[in-house]
Every structure is written in structure tokens, then in C-alpha cells.
């Protein structure tokens, strides 16, 4: 390989390709493409492209057990998906859940970040503690909290699965515990980037603490607010593990969120095609949010 690099390095030197390597290294790199990009590309096709394409196809198919015995039937699955009352309920439940969680998580995370950037003693320790629950996986979190909630609710002779409201607020508390610390870290980074002299200038001009907060600090951390809002929104919409572990959709599928509703649909042959159609709808919904997020964070990256 060394030989080829040297021999190809002699002639072409005048033309430099835009952005990338000079052509000599580029050409010798291409000879190794099977090694550099081959394994990921193969795994990406197996793990993503192929299943994704098949998923789109199957959403237009009738009953199927395997992919080979599926028959094309048009938009029937989509019509059935929209007619499915559990899907509609899951959508509104998820949307409401996402909105409430976005507001609460961001308010608390910002408040925590603001408190921890005031130079209070022990800030690092507090930050460590607040972030910690974020690393625990959804299933473990769900069962951890279901035991805690049942422990509390048993005092009132009831349990978390008794009412849909319990499940809803239980999930909100769980998600707050898990995600406030994460969003707090992003807000801390944002707050630390606010220029000190700006705050100083506001103080000299006689601004009160709350004026400084709303007129100087918050406009300056807008990028962090955008990121965190999108993150909490998509996290809320895609929530699955926590939902499954805490309530499993009970009582009577009333606390079933979109991801769980779709996932449950795959288990029976009759509803499999409908579940796949629901998944496509779900994908379009989440992808729209995700792309909006990428576009809005792209601007921030350019500045860095």
C-alpha cells in the first residue's frame, strides 16, 4: 500500500479538490473503501435501510406472518389506523403528556441551572446528584418507581394501575426525575456562555434581578431553550420503556402512549399491517419534529 501512495503522489499536484484531501491520498483511500466504509455500510443496510424500506412496503399490505407472504392492498391499513379508537386515544394522551412534560421539565431544569450558576457552595455535588437518574434505563426506572408509587398509594388502599390519572402523573414524575438533570446540564452550559459584562452593565444601569433575568439572560440562552424544548418534546413522543414498565398501558389501555400502542399492535397477525401503518404515521410525526430540531441546532453549530 505504501508503494501505491508514493507512485501516485508524483503526477497530479496542480488541482486541489475542494475541502477534501489532495487527490493522491484521496485516490489511495478509495482503494481501501471496502475496509473503511464497507462494514458500517453493510450493517447500516441490514439494521436500518432494508428494514425501513420493508416497513414502508408492509404498511400497504394485508395480513402477514413473514414478509414474503404479504400481499399489497393499498391504503386500507392507514384508513383502519385512523379509525382505531385506541390509536386516537394514544395520540391525545401522548400529545398532552408531551406538552406537560416539556413545560415542567424545562422550567425545573432552568431553575436548577440558574440556582447552580450563582456560585453557591456545593454546586458540583448538586449537579452530580441531579444528573445521575438520567443514566438509569427506562425499564429499571419504571419498576423502581412503580414500587415507590405503590408504596405511597397503598396507604390510601389503591395502586398506580387503578386510575389513568395516576399513571399519567406517575409517568410525569418519573420523567421529571430522569430528565431534569440532563436538560439542566445543557442550560448550565448556556448560562455560563452569557457574557459577564452584559450582566454587569445591566446591574450598573439599575436593572433588578428579575429584569436582568428576563431581559438579558433569557434572550441569551434562547439556543439552549430551543434544543431542550425539542429534545423533551421528541423524548415525550417516543417514550416507550418507561410507559411499558410503569403502567403497561393499564387500566384498559388508557395510559397507552403511541409507541406502546404500535408495539402492541405487532403481536397479532390481524393488526400487524395496521401497526406498521401507524408506525409510518408515527415516523412522519417524529421526523418532522426531529428535522425541525436539526435545522434549528445547525444554526448554533455554525456559530461555534
Amino acid at each position, binding site marked *: 500500500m505504501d508503494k501505491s*501512495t508514493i507512485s501516485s503522489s508524483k503526477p497530479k499536484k496542480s488541482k486541489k479538490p475542494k475541502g477534501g484531501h489532495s487527490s493522491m491520498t484521496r485516490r489511495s483511500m478509495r482503494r481501501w473503501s471496502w475496509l473503511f466504509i464497507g462494514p458500517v455500510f453493510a450493517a447500516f443496510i441490514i439494521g436500518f435501510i432494508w428494514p425501513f424500506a420493508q416497513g414502508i412496503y408492509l404498511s400497504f399490505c394485508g395480513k402477514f406472518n413473514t414478509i414474503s407472504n404479504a400481499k399489497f392492498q393499498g391504503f386500507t391499513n392507514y384508513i383502519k389506523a385512523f379509525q382505531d379508537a385506541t390509536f386516537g386515544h394514544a395520540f391525545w394522551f401522548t400529545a398532552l403528556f408531551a406538552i406537560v412534560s416539556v413545560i415542567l421539565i424545562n422550567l425545573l431544569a432552568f431553575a436548577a441551572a440558574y440556582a447552580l450558576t450563582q456560585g453557591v457552595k456545593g454546586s458540583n455535588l448538586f449537579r452530580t446528584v441531579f444528573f445521575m437518574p438520567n443514566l*438509569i434505563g427506562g425499564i429499571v426506572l419504571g419498576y423502581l418507581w412503580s414500587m415507590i408509587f405503590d408504596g405511597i398509594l397503598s396507604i390510601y388502599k389503591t395502586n398506580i394501575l387503578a386510575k389513568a390519572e395516576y399513571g399519567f402523573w406517575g409517568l410525569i414524575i418519573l420523567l421529571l426525575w430522569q430528565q431534569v438533570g440532563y436538560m439542566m446540564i445543557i442550560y448550565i452550559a448556556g448560562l455560563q456562555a452569557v457574557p459577564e459584562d452584559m450582566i454587569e452593565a445591566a446591574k450598573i444601569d439599575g436593572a433588578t434581578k428579575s429584569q436582568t433575568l428576563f431581559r438579558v439572560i433569557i434572550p441569551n440562552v434562547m439556543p439552549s431553550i430551543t434544543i431542550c424544548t425539542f429534545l423533551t418534546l421528541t423524548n415525550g413522543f417516543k417514550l416507550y420503556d418507561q410507559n411499558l414498565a410503569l403502567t403497561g398501558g393499564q387500566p384498559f389501555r388508557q395510559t397507552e402512549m403511541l409507541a406502546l400502542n404500535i408495539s402492541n399492535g405487532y403481536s397479532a397477525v390481524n393488526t400487524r399491517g395496521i401497526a406498521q401503518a401507524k408506525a409510518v404515521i408515527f415516523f412522519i410525526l417524529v421526523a418532522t419534529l426531529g428535522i425541525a430540531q436539526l435545522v434549528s441546532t445547525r444554526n448554533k453549530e455554525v456559530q461555534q
Partner: protein
Amino acid sequence: MGKQKSIQQEKARKTIMSVVLAIICVIYMLPILTIFSNTFKNASAVKSDIFALPNSETFVGFDNYVTGMTAGSFPFWKAVIFNVIITVLSAALILLFCSMAAWYVARVNSFFCKIFYYLCVFSMVVPFQMVQFTLSKTADTLKLNTPWTIPVIYLGFGAGLAIFMFVGFAKSIPIEIEEAASIDGCGPVRTYFLVVLPMLKPTLISVGILEIMWVWNDYLLPSLVLDLAKYRNIPMHIQLTNTGSYGQMNLGAMMAMIFLSIVPIIIFYLICQKYIIKGVAAGAVKG
């Protein structure tokens, strides 16, 4: 005088805030502490009042840990071992191959590379439910349904975030260093391993942590793909022992199992805290 007073006020305010935050921290840790205290109680005591501390009547020593670890036809310790195998193999595969591919994409930058890059970015916004059924079928056909082969799926599904982050960093590496290496007679493979890979270290750490946390805690993919009589990871095992059909476990042992699943995460966190918190901002793009 007035100024001194305001400084004193400021000091008092900060002390009060410290105390308030400390109280919130303790409340924050209560769920985990409650679980911990229940790991030492017998099942009926767990059931009657989970907030009571263990006393001489309800204390069972480490019995719950022993039962939790070994009970059932598929003991918990096996799930821990499989979890470690899957996580280590997947993270290693993702870090090695995705960083190689990302460097190639950043440098060669051909039409194919651009398509591949945008497909990777696209894959980040696709929810798992979209490929849930088809991916499990593909995995079965290709025999990617064991702890030793499932990392291939993780490589494919985790490529999006990894490629996205690596390409961003690889583009910022000055090209002159690589050119110097190639003039000194290094081919692309040697340049990559001797020159590029060491420079990628900070991104390798951030991506590694993100992927490790994801694979370690992942439930849906392994539960769809793995044969649960033979292989389970920790989340699968916790889910299966809690859903009735596999026999309910005694509550004390369940508490021990939950606690044991959290311990490795806390240790990992305390060791890598600095990198994890740094990586959060970097990984904030994943939706």
C-alpha cells in the same frame, strides 16, 4: 455601611440556597435509598410498608441479593454477563468502524459519501417502532439473534449518531498532518491508525459513552431479537420477572435486583462523570 449589609445579605442568601438545594438533593436520592433499604427486608415487610427501615424482625441480611441473583430458571447473573458482552462488543464495533467510515466520508466526500452521510442523519429521526417488525425478521434470517451477533444490528442502527458526530470532528482535523504522514510513506490504513485515531480520542470518548448507555439500557431490540429462554439482558430480565407469566418473584429479591441493576451505572457515572457531562451537550442533537 449599606454595601456591607448587602454583602452580608448576599452571603445569607447563598447559605439558604445551599441548604435548600441540599434538601432537594436528599429528596432526589430518596427513591434509590428506599429501594436500597428494602433490599434488606423480607417480602411481607416490603409489601406492608416500603418506607419503614429494616428492623430486627424484618432484616434478612443478604438473602435478597442471593435470591435475586440466582433464583429462577434463568438467573439474573447470566443476564448481567450477557448485558456486558452485548454492550462491550457493540460499543467496540461502533467506535472502530464508524470512526473509520466517518474519516473516509469527511475526506473522500464523493457523491456516494454524501448520500450515506445524509442517510445516517436521517436514521436518527426514525423511531424504532418503524422497523420493529421487519428488523426482528431480518435478524432471525441472518442469525443475528445471539449476544455475539446482535452487535452487528447495533452497529447498523447506532451508526447514525456516531457517524454524525465523528464526521463533524474529522472535518476539523487539519489535513496537513495526514498529508505529511502520506509523504512519509504511510498508506491510508496506517495513517488512520497512527495519526487520525489518536486525534479522535475526545470524540471517541463522548460517542463511546452515549453508545454504552444506549446499548446497556436498551430493552426493545434485544427483547425482539434474542431467544429469551437462552439469552437475556438486564432490562429484559427485569421486565420478564415482573410480568406474571414467568412467575412473580418475591418483592425483596425484586428490590435487590433493581438495586443491583443501578449499581454498575452509578459506578460508571462516578468514574466517567467529567466526560459524560461534556458529552451531553455534544449528543444533544440526537432526538
